[in-house]
């Protein structure tokens, strides 16, 4: 290999590594298997698991009606579901909240994605999916094969959410 070729390869490798490391820092660990005991109950009382959504890129967004930054973020998630749903994105909204409060908010905002309710269930799922702070919003991205691609604590900006989804949608 020529010196020029070596420099190119080294720069390419360093750049790729830096990009991956910074992305991993931004969105948490990648490639972890999905915990089996992640369950959610919908507003009609039916149980669901993340395995029900295999084959889709799933963005699980934990929220609550008492959480101001969650409500700020929800219009972005509505838009994301409408824009990318046909390409395989599925947003899910488990709420650490009372079913009646979630139902009222869902109906008022006409949420185009499934929401679930239950304090204990949501808290357990957050912990199982790697949350350590216990705060909301908390989001987890799951690959179509069921692997955790990353975690995000706090609210997304529009550009962060768009970049995240477009990076992972084929």
């Amino acid at each position: 290999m020529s010196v020029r070729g070596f420099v190119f390869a080294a720069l390419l490798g360093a750049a790729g590594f830096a990009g991956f490391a910074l992305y991993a820092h931004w969105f948490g660990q990648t490639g972890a298997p999905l915990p089996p005991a992640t369950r959610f109950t919908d507003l009609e009382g039916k149980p669901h698991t993340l395995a029900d959504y295999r084959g889709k890129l799933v963005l699980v967004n934990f929220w609550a009606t008492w959480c101001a930054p969650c409500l700020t973020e929800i219009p972005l998630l509505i838009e994301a579901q409408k824009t990318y749903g046909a390409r395989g994105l599925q947003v899910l909204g488990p709420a650490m909240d009372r079913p009646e409060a979630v139902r009222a908010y869902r109906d008022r905002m006409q949420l185009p994605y499934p929401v679930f309710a239950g304090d204990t269930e949501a808290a357990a799922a957050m912990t199982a999916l790697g949350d350590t702070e216990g705060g909301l919003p908390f989001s987890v991205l799951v690959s179509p094969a069921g692997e955790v691609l990353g975690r995000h604590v706090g609210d997304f900006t529009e550009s962060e959410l768009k970049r995240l989804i477009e990076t992972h949608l084929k």
Partner: protein
Amino acid sequence: MRMTFLAVLLAASTASLASDLMSSPAAAQEFLPVDQAFELQPVESNNGQLTVAWRVRPEHYLYKLRLAFSSQSPGLKLGAVKLPKGKPYKDELLGDTEIYDSDLQVSIPASGSGTLKVTYQGCAKKGLCYPPQTRELNVSVAAAKKA
């Protein structure tokens, strides 16, 4: 020459993307567990009063509206709680409200002993809210000194 130029271009564009990610709000977000964000201090009892205090970390706040105190024991009597004036705050959810974004101390007229239930809720200014917290504390109130 062309290869070197391409390599430098690639490195520069990656650095630019990385810089963008690092400067985004999410990159800077390293949130605290709730008990570190709002550190409840041991309850003090003096002269017929209980003092409940929190160390509120910078860039965090408690909602005045979401503070509540109640007795869980017949032997503990609480008087009316007068909360300190908070800082005016415009909240997405609550509208115009008041918050405490620095250390907070609340005095509660009380007598007897038993379990004091304390409820509070707050957020980090960077965009995270903690669920309502409830703590049950065993307290014993020292009687007020007679003049």
